[in-house]
């Protein structure tokens, strides 16, 4: 079983981080992973697109041409919608993107990532940054919610991911990011429940 994901957005949204965390999550689950960052020359504002491939088997190509999942953090990311495999999923940051996918053969999950992250101010360390920076973690949680690997196992692995990457100065942001993942996970799982 191989899953292929494109994560796209603009510089400053934590797109590279999100894709890297997602890849490392799969690695901790014992899968082979390949993560390809590609980004413009600027740290902020430039177009960012990453590939994440995870598989039980060795990965032939790390290049994602027909993703199962597209995580679209901003409007220009919708350019990649035509690449989605039929039956694939578009996970869209509805805080910034109002448009529909323009195709009927994919599932759309709209997650107000910025609003959900903004409600987590109580987890920001004293004098820290605006909680909306954790919108990428909300989307990570949403992506993991779609994967349906069980909330307890998912959360334990996400914690391990964050303990690996959120070190030194970033360690203070672990609670914010973990709660942001929970928020994204819960949002998607709720929306998947039959009404």
């Amino acid at each position: 079983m191989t899953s292929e994901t494109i994560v796209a957005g603009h510089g400053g949204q934590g797109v590279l981080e999100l894709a890297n965390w997602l890849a490392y999550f799969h690695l901790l689950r014992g899968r082979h992973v390949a993560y390809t960052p590609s980004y413009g020359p600027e740290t902020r504002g430039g177009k960012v697109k990453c590939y994440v491939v995870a598989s039980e088997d060795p990965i032939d190509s790390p290049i994602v041409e027909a993703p199962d999942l597209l995580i679209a953090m901003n409007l220009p990311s919708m350019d990649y919608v035509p690449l989605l495999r039929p039956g694939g999923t578009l996970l869209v940051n509805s805080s910034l993107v109002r448009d529909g996918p323009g195709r009927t053969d994919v599932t759309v999950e709209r997650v107000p990532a910025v609003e959900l992250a903004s409600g987590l101010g109580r987890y920001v360390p004293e004098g820290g940054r605006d909680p909306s920076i954790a919108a990428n973690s909300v989307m990570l949680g949403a992506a993991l919610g779609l994967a349906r690997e069980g909330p307890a196992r998912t959360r334990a692995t996400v914690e391990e991911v964050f303990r690996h990457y959120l070190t030194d100065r970033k360690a203070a942001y672990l609670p914010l990011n973990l709660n942001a993942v929970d928020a994204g996970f819960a949002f998607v799982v709720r929306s998947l429940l039959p009404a």
Partner: protein
Amino acid sequence: MSDVREFLKGNEALAYGALRTGLNAYFAYPITPSSEIPETLATEFARSTFPDFRTFLQAASELEAINMVIGAAATGAKAMTATSGPGFSLKQEGLSYAAGMELPLLVVDVNRAGPGLGNLGPEQTDYFQATRGGGHGGYPTLVLAPSSVPEMASFPALGFDLAFAYRTPVILLADAFLGQLKEDLVFPDVPSPSYDVAWAATGARGEARHVLSSLHLELADQSRHSRHLLDKRTRIAQREQRAEEVGTEDAEIVFVAYGICARLARRAVRILRSRSIRAGLLRPITLAPFPERRVRQLIEQGRRKFLVVELNAGQMVDDVRLAAGGAANVELLGEMGGLLPSSLDLVRAAEAMAR
């Protein structure tokens, strides 16, 4: 699967692979997309994690760096530098001197796109420069082509083995994609080898004097030395051709690809086989010596169609055609500018050829 799985960029994995095989000295002049190599090595040097790693020095230019590598290698140390495109051009003079002086050393080229400054995307346009020897005077070349992050990690050990076995520079030719790609890997637990360096100029008092020079003013002397280097090239060509194969035993069409293109070709082979086209892959691991023997054997075994995929306007395809000697149909699928062909481009080209 082992528990100690790392998740590293190709460039980082290469740096750790070099350290684990006992790298003694690194001389740096960073250039994108290879800069994570000196960054990683500088970090580990500051931590003193690897006791063999005695020198990390930031040079003032690429020329300085390669000549420092020459100096360190002359003492028998495992010395290395890494660069990309423009920097690789600047290293060519040093590579010629090092080959003439018969020094074992490692130069990594993370191939970026275009002549001049070009851009930071992946290309394989340095193939000729690396395999033919971009320096003057004629000398043996040994070029290794990793195709995954685990190979970025393991090829420095192979590179030093070959460099010391033949006392000649080894080039590790990667591309910008492999440098930036992150994959899971497990470092093999192998002790760092020690090589016979009785020839080295250590400067030790009371030891025999070892002169390492590429200067041979007597014509007969230079002629002898040139023949010696030619013999070395022949020995390397006989013994060191390496390649990996996928599905070549029954293939009606064989991809020939290295580096990131070999990964695309693997996928294309899988897609083609699912469409009942028997595709295979010959992946050169040594670009110099080129695995021409395997090409000839495959033709003798009935393979008649070869599709070369590379990120240039056609360089390795010449070596495949030379090996085939007109006995097979050899075509090229090339892409440039930092762009990659899609696996479907490969599939379509193979389908057209298979017809």
